[in-house]
């Protein structure tokens, strides 16, 4: 299987978003809703108050991490579907450190975050190792690793750190990255320090890939592993490294949620979904740091705005899952968007001729 992503220009994500929202509008029309007022209430739900903005940023934060994770792996020629699982084990590791260690905050927070990065990194490195040493395609192994992570984290919470309800105990206040002054700034929204960490890592990813010797190797291995091997690079080690870094990024996302938003981890019957959304974020961001940030803002806003839309105009929240699915569909089938762009380019030419 060949999983090099096709390159596409900035127009493709843009057209894909528009097309997908049109599909969403059709779905709403068929069900008897007014798509215009629905989308209006949707935008209302994102921007209309500092509180809503803060909550949107909260929603965006984990998506930056998982988007970066998937994008980083893509850049190095790997398809990491496992951000979901890496996110879960990262969250578990951070929360566990948050619960069981008693440290001053300036040690406790970094340690919890580091634990998450390592846990997520190792969870990613296993498929990386299997790919490098045994030639196993990472798509299947990462899918399977997601389920293992899902079952395992639930089991560990239930067995070793369960509170009264279906969740873990609370972390020590010293491990929390949620700060009152920041929340107060946004009328009590659950925004937290994670967004700063996320933006920092977005920059670090760019720097690593494009400015360092290690990044040069990773990009070479990613675009053509045979040529990289021929040029004397250690392809296997680079694959494992890339998957470790990718997994660590996803794991950091887990830490950010665990330490920032909730302060605990729930025993869940469904996947959180941010890892899978990360794939869409990376795709829409063309696997660049800045693109991932923008993609995460879009998806975070979509997800958060949809909750408001359900309340304000009664359209089921799931409409946004349909829209997101179609965004992915149109980006994957980029030929559709490209041909539309081609048509758009022709139209102004013709009207110019007509006007002259």
């Amino acid at each position, binding site marked *: 299987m060949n999983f090099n992503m096709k390159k596409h220009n900035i127009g493709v994500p843009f057209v894909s978003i528009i097309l997908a929202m049109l599909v969403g509008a059709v779905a709403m029309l068929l069900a008897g809703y007014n798509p215009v007022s629905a989308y209006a209430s949707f935008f209302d739900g994102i921007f209309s108050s500092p509180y809503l903005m803060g909550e949107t940023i909260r929603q965006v934060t984990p998506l930056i991490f998982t988007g970066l994770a998937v994008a980083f792996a893509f850049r190095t020629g790997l398809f990491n579907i496992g951000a979901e699982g890496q996110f879960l084990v990262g969250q578990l590791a951070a929360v566990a450190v948050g619960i069981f260690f008693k440290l001053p905050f300036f040690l406790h927070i970094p340690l919890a975050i580091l634990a998450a990065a390592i846990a997520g990194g190792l969870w990613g490195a296993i498929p990386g190792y299997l790919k490098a040493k045994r030639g196993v395609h990472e798509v299947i192994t990462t899918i399977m690793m997601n389920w293992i992570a899902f079952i395992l984290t639930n089991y560990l919470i239930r067995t070793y750190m369960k509170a009264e309800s279906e969740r873990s105990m609370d972390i020590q206040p010293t491990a929390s990255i949620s700060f009152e002054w920041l929340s107060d700034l946004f009328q009590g929204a659950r925004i937290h320090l994670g967004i700063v960490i996320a933006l920092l890592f977005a920059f670090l990813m760019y720097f690593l890939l494009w400015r360092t*010797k290690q990044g040069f190797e990773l*990009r070479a291995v990613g675009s053509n592993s*045979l040529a990289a*091997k021929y*040029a*004397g690079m250690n392809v296997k080690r680079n694959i494992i490294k890339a998957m470790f870094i990718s997994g660590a990024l996803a794991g950091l996302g887990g830490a950010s949620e665990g330490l920032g938003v909730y302060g605990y981890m729930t025993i869940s019957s469904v996947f959180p979904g941010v890892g899978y959304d990360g794939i869409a974020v990376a795709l829409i961001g063309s696997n660049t740091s800045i693109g991932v940030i923008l993609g995460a803002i879009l998806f975070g806003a979509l997800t958060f705005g949809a909750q408001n839309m359900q309340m304000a105009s009664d359209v089921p929240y799931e409409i946004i899952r349909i829209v997101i699915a179609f965004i992915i569909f149109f980006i994957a089938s980029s030929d559709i968007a490209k041909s539309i762009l081609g048509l758009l380019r022709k139209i102004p030419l013709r009207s110019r001729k007509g006007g002259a």
Partner: protein
Amino acid sequence: MPLLRPGGQSYQGVKRMALAVEMKNITKTFYGMKANDDISFQVEKGEIHALLGENGAGKSTLMNILFGLYQADQGEILIHETPAKISDPQMAIDLGIGMVHQHFMLVDNFTVLENIILGAEPRKRMSIDYNKASKEIETLSNQYGLKINLNSQVRDISIGMQQKVEILKTLYRGADILIFDEPTAVLTPQEIQELTSIMKNLTSEGKTVILITHKLKEILTIANAVTVIRRGKVCDTLRVKDTNEVELAEKMVGRKVTLQLNKDEKEREGLVLSLRDVRAKDNRGLDALHGIDLEVYGGEIVGIAGVDGNGQSELVEVITGLRQAQSGEMILAGNNISGLHTRQIHEKGIAHIPEDRHRLGIVMDMTLSENLVLNSYFKKEFNKRGLLNEKSIKAHARKLIDKFDIRTPSESAKIRALSGGNQQKAVIAREIEGDPKLLIAAQPTRGLDVGAIEFIHRQILNERDEGKAVLLVSFELEEILSLSDRIAVIYEGRIVGIVDPKETTEQELGLLMSGRSARKETVE
């Protein structure tokens, strides 16, 4: 003088023969490039008609149009003098056209039988009637002298055999016009002779053969007529008996070409590479090298001749550290390099022009300047404490672009944007620039046009003249014979003979390449 002959003379009209194929004014454009530009071309029934042209001249495109794989933008096709619209291969097959592709179109984990009947399976009720199919195929293979084992898996049979499967595929579908796309590229001289007689058999049974090739000698021995294509246009159609090698070469390239390479005598210098009893396995875990002994001295070119798949790739990979040897010893200028990594070996002085530049030599998504430091980016001049020095990487690129005349919009252009010849120049520039002790050149000119080939041959000879050792691996016997100072013939993972090119004919090499001793046996 051949120049006195009237050029562009058409041979038809003297005596009107039935036409098997006629293509009129065919034009085909890819991404704004005219691959075929108003090509008209006629093939008489029962002849072997060669289509001659350089790599990239447009011959394969034209034949892919005839076979329905591409559609022409303009033009008309007549089969047996009846207009035909061929919009997919099935239509071509129905019209009696068969094609033997250059890269065989075989499913390698299917059996020979399954490959032959695919798409035209005889049925008994719902199931495939394999018995009926094998009987029919056996009849055909007896008729045309194509002996094969129907139940072998394709991946287990030799390349010569695979070609026979390809021919049987077309015959099984009742083809009476057979297109051969560069059929001799991977065969030994003996296999080529066998193929020649198969083609003659075919025409004597009334079938028509179109032979795509860029090899002049082949045309003179096999074909009746030849159409020369240059840069997408027909420049002439000639009867073979009325022409000669020099004239054909000129028409193909569009200028006078020296068929002989000027090569000065050169005393060989000290021992650079020596291999002792080197053994290695291939990707499937089977023994590929059975104890190779080989020496290469400074100032000489040692050519490795052999049919594809006899261990050449594995040999190069073992020397360059890309493949682990099972046992044996490799010494480079006094240093033992056995068991070292690719990078360590490269640093010790082995440069490598890989056999497949797209797969191995370059990273298409990277820029030219990045590709030019692909195996030196970690050195002090390009890298400081883990950070890349972009300025010096670009300066280095500009130097090589100048020195090796690489045609590119800029050093920051993606290497994908360069032509094949310029990509290969970039690879050669990178490898030679490192001042190696030994240069390994594997298939260095495959798929390039004559200009690029000349340039690359010149570079290889320069290296030798400067006292470097050169190991040349090629399937093109002419290339081996004209460049090498010594030729080592490889067969089934063994060096079966080392000969002097000045005292060896292609026939003798061919026998060695097929595992037979050159002296005892005679040509069948």
